[in-house]
């Protein structure tokens, strides 16, 4: 079971907060993606933005706020979770050396050999839980527990574009050069964000990502 609460943030944003009950079977995020799909298809919203355990839906017409909050509460349990068909991506990753400046230190800290670190990171399917921080910066859930560690205490000012990073329970790819506090373990040549293309971001909320090791 999962439960949901709704409130209005400001005049036109409906926040839908999901909380997992102990006997939960279907993952809460799949239900939130199903909710996003349903809200998007209604045509009543400017934008539907998923986050960690919530979805925020920006109404075109604020007068519909009450009606939509009731509708969401009523419909939440009936959402067709199985109907969400995520896109799968394979991202080529160059690990370690000049591609990931924190790779050696992280392997030490986690007491892993370089090979184990790469295998762990590239052995799982990640899911785009939400996008934030920068255009196209996807928070990828599914990071193996053995690779989880807190962010750096002091962020660095220039993380190279395409850097593959880990922090807390997430992995991510920096779509552009920016400041950042995650641990850098590799790099990809894949373009993550292009404002000239219609879809702009390669990764969309709910998509599945697998890293594939490449060597040069």
């Amino acid at each position: 079971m999962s439960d949901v609460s709704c409130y209005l943030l400001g005049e036109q944003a409906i926040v839908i907060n999901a909380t997992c009950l102990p006997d939960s079977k279907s993952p809460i995020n799949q239900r939130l993606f199903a909710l996003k799909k349903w809200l998007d298809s209604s045509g009543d919203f400017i934008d539907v933005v998923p986050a960690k355990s919530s979805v925020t839906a920006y109404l075109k017409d604020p007068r519909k706020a009450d009606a939509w909050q009731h509708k969401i509460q009523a419909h939440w349990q009936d959402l067709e979770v199985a109907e969400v068909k995520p896109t799968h991506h394979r991202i080529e990753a160059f690990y370690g050396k000049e591609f990931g400046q924190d790779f050696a230190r992280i392997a030490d800290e986690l007491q892993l050999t370089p090979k184990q670190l790469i295998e762990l990171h590239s052995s799982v399917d990640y899911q785009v839980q939400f996008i934030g921080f920068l255009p196209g910066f996807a928070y990828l859930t599914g990071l193996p527990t053995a690779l989880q560690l807190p962010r750096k205490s002091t962020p660095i000012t220039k993380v190279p574009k395409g850097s593959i990073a880990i922090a807390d329970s997430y992995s991510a790819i920096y779509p552009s050069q920016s400041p950042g506090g995650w641990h850098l373990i590799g790099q990809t040549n894949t373009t993550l964000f292009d404002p000239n293309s219609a879809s702009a971001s390669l990764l969309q909320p709910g998509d599945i990502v697998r890293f594939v090791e490449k060597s040069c």
Partner: protein
Amino acid sequence: MLEVIKPGPLSTIQDIGRQGLRHLGVSAAGVIDPVALKLSNTLLSNNDDTAAIEVTIGLCEFHFHAPTNFVIAGADLNAALNDEAIYPCWRYSAKAGDKLTFKQNRDGLRAYLVVEGGFTNIDKLLGSYSTDLMAGFGGIGGRALKQGDKLSYTPSTAKSSVGGLQPSYEKLIHFIPGPHLEIISKQTLSVLNDTIWKVNPSSNRMGIRLSGHSNLVHAHNIATQAVHPGVIQLPPSGEPIILLNDCQTTGGYPIIGTIIRADMRHLSQLGAGDCIHLKSTSLTDATKESHRVQAHLNQLRLALKNKEQ
């Protein structure tokens, strides 16, 4: 063509902003005062999505190389056309060779310059001309204007001068109480309402940072959730941040309020050291205020239509 002789501290191309892309991490960008842009475009019979140059503080100089009509709106930054004073929310005509300057702020922080028909050599990306300074796209190469930039426009013949009433900018700003007020303490709402808040110098287009209050210091985080311009975040330091157009799309600080839409324009004019009052209000009153602003714009549109027919 309009040539940038001196860009000042920050001049950028902005329109009404990017909509519908926050789920991809793309900020709204756009003018901080949408009413000033709408008034300008109305006075020039431009399309609503015509972009302006948003000027900050002043210290700018632009040269017109072809005739056009233009409007300046927003703050009074001591503007002059060929050294003769001109005023916000009036339409003027410029000839080739004319010099437009913004000396320095008399009052307020941001002014808008719009030409008839708009600029024609600026980048429209993801549905908007607005410059996204953080991600580096839109406007002119995704950056602030610099000396020597040339902005093209279609020349137009001189029209008579005409002005509209620009509603005043206020320092009493209304907000709707936020979802995490009670997490901080029982007094958070009264502290917000009763304090004189000072604007910190580190404020920018991402957010207005306010002075702190000892009763607001806390140690709470929330699960990262979507945020948007107008949201008031409270970091552990107890110094509230009012998010503006260039803010990120998600955040993990408690949310203690949201500025009402009708009052967002007042935020465009707040600079370092300014003092403001925040006052909680209801959704009903917020809606009324939005309608009032819209009615003002509609009135101006109607009046101009009658005058220029």
